């Protein structure tokens, strides 16, 4: 067992750190990045940050050089991410673009398409959104209803997507549709990519409980997509979607604040009746619990890195990490605000500590437990795929899609 970097890894880490030192401001207690999620200034700032990384060879670290990547290992990609979070950088805007769209394109797109889209995406020129979920198909994604009908060299799409993060600023999209309603639900799907400026698309931002709009409803009315933009075979959309989702679970390694280090900062800054909050027994119990979880997640990622460096496939590590981290974030948000007592409800970034990080997280955290595999779906994945317990009762698997019962 060895938790130290190999000489090669250490060299790369030093290079990454030196570059970050020159190009970004290091985090300090109480300091946060200038734009929060949902603020319009964030998008150009995030594009500029990606472009800067791209020019210096720190974008697409594990991707082939012919598509604008660095051609190195996933381990190095993780090392860069580990270093990057120590700096004040834009909250993630490119997670779907880099983590989901690019790997799917690399697996299923033509050579010409890869050349056209992958470098542009890595450079920050193109932001992608993922049009998967629908009003009646969330956790049960394969229940989606958006119809695709072949029309010559095109497909005509009608339907509605929902919870589409970033659709209001995305340039491109990946899309799963139902091309055959007579087939069982997993077998009648077809997958495409498209330009978000195509006629027939209407994006309506959804106002979240935070007041911001990070995700949207997307309505498609007689939207035309050329057949050349189909990814995978007709009827194979489910397999392509699985490729995308597997990458989602690998890519979402970085967790939004506040995490252990943030609450540890706050409890040392906050005075309670009998001295600093960090000296309070109840506070210390919580801190210990959050530390072992934060540290556990970090170490589980180390195990993932070990597996990747041996060329092994990742296991359930990301399901565990996401389940643990998104719940912990919500707990920390509640607890951090409680420490602030009667003033804890203030959300004004000029008044609340750390630019209202805790208050912001209170209203943001519920989404983290739902998006990208809800707590419940992740527990199902763990219990079925890791522990080998029987699957849930499924009455829908073999029935033709158009004969399935539907509730609200």
């Amino acid at each position, binding site marked *: *067992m060895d*938790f130290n970097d190999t000489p090669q890894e250490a060299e790369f880490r030093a290079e990454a750190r030196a570059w970050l030192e020159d190009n970004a401001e290091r985090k300090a207690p109480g300091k946060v990045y200038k734009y929060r999620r949902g603020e319009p200034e964030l998008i150009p700032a995030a594009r500029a940050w990606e472009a800067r990384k791209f020019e210096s060879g720190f974008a697409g670290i594990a991707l082939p050089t012919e598509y604008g990547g660095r051609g190195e290992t996933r381990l190095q990609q993780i090392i860069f991410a580990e270093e990057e979070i120590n700096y004040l950088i834009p909250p993630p805007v490119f997670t779907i673009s880099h983590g989901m769209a690019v790997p799917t394109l690399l697996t299923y797109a033509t050579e010409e398409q890869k050349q056209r889209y992958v470098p542009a995406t890595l450079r920050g020129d193109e932001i992608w959104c993922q049009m998967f979920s629908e009003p009646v198909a969330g956790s049960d994604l394969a229940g989606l209803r958006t119809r695709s009908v072949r029309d010559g060299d095109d497909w005509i799409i009608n339907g509605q997507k929902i919870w589409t993060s970033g659709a209001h600023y995305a340039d491109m999209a990946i899309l799963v549709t139902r091309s055959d309603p007579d087939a069982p639900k997993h077998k009648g799907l077809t997958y495409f990519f498209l330009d978000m400026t195509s006629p027939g698309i209407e994006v309506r931002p959804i106002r979240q409980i935070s007041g911001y709009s990070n995700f949207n409803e997307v309505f498609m009315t007689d939207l035309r997509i050329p057949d050349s933009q189909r990814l995978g075979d007709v009827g194979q959309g489910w397999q392509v979607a699985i490729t995308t989702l597997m990458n989602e679970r690998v890519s979402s390694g970085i967790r939004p604040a506040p995490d252990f280090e943030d609450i540890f900062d706050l409890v040392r800054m906050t005075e309670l009746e009998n001295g600093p909050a960090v000296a309070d027994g109840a506070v210390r119990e919580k801190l210990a*619990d959050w530390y072992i979880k934060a*540290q556990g997640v970090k170490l589980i990622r180390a195990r993932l890195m070990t597996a990747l*460096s041996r060329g092994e496939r990742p296991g359930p590590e990301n399901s565990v990490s996401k389940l643990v981290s998104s719940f912990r974030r919500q707990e920390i948000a509640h607890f951090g605000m409680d420490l602030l007592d009667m003033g804890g409800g203030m959300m004004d970034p000029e008044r609340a500590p750390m630019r209202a990080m805790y208050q912001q997280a209170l209203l943001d955290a519920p989404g983290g437990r739902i998006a990208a595999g809800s707590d419940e779906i992740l527990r199902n994945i763990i219990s079925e795929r890791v522990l080998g317990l029987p699957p849930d009762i499924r009455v829908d698997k073999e029935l033709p899609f158009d004969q399935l019962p539907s509730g609200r």
Partner: protein
Amino acid sequence: MNFDFSEEQYLLRDQAKRFLADRSTPAVVRAVLEDEAKPYDEDLWRGMAELGWLGTAIPEEYGGAGMSGEDLCVIAEELGRSLAPTPFSSSVYMATEALLMAGSDQQKQDYLPALAMGERIGCMAVSEGIGVTDAASINTRANEGVIEGAKVPVADGDVADFAVVLAAQGNSGDTSLFLVELNDDSVRREAVEMVDPTRSHVEMTFEGTAAELLGEPGEGWSITQAVFDRAAILMAFEQVGGAQACLDMAVDYAKNRFAFGRAIGSYQAIKHKLADIYVATELARANAYYGAWALATDAPDLATAAAAARVAASEAYNLAARENIQTHGGMGFTWEFDCHLYYRRAKLLSLALGGERKWKDRLVSQLEARNSSGEE
């Protein structure tokens, strides 16, 4: 980065697993549970000695195998899984570690070869009863090579040949460690009823017993802490092994027990409970692995790693043990089913080196010290 045990360590684990599956069966554990005259399984103990496990981390010059703390962790996990009813933790994690850490060369030569062979058993006597144990609470006193006082509970105190005893000396709060031979008329040992009878404990009373200083005078409490840190990591592996055993039992039962026409493991109420145990166990395992590395390399953050491993493993094992009973329903509550063996052991292990509250506090203290020294 290599966050995994080596191939040799996997071989060691397989050997341990096979040996314990054969020799530390539930029947063996129950024999110790149900027979008050049987403090531990002697055959099992002899077998462990023959395999060289007792001297795993003892250097070769003192008759051990000269292997690393990581190897001992591999064995500990399997001991925890099989509930091995032996004085392993007392003799190996405590007495041996204390001697390795603080013993003079002469003391190491006197004690370690016999410990490695299993010819002698050691134990460590710190607690003096109900309530918090710290340097100021110690009433056992040592004066001019003689010790007076009572320690309780002392794990394996009935079968040990000698004890490492924490005693006060000189001014209040000054403590030192002593090596005390137990086969002496001035030592009284009385069995104490414990929540887990598969591990025997006594009240040990010294009435003018000869005591030999171990380590520097006045350093008793700090050496004890350092021994406990290392023992916490080893015990965390026992706890992870135990938690995994509970999870395996619960999963197996949930697959095979039917209610309302289906396996109970197909209902989310059970599936999600078991997923939560898996998550807690994986977090504990990750923290324990880091501890193993810290143990083997004597890492500067060993104390932090130990506290994190201890807290995570205590929580995971207690959770797994109680929810294993819950998953088994009424049968899990019977003497006949093995669920209670783990339930008892889980609680005992989480108290043995001090309770969870204390270790959580210690963890945060370590983190505060790390931050104020400016390290990351």
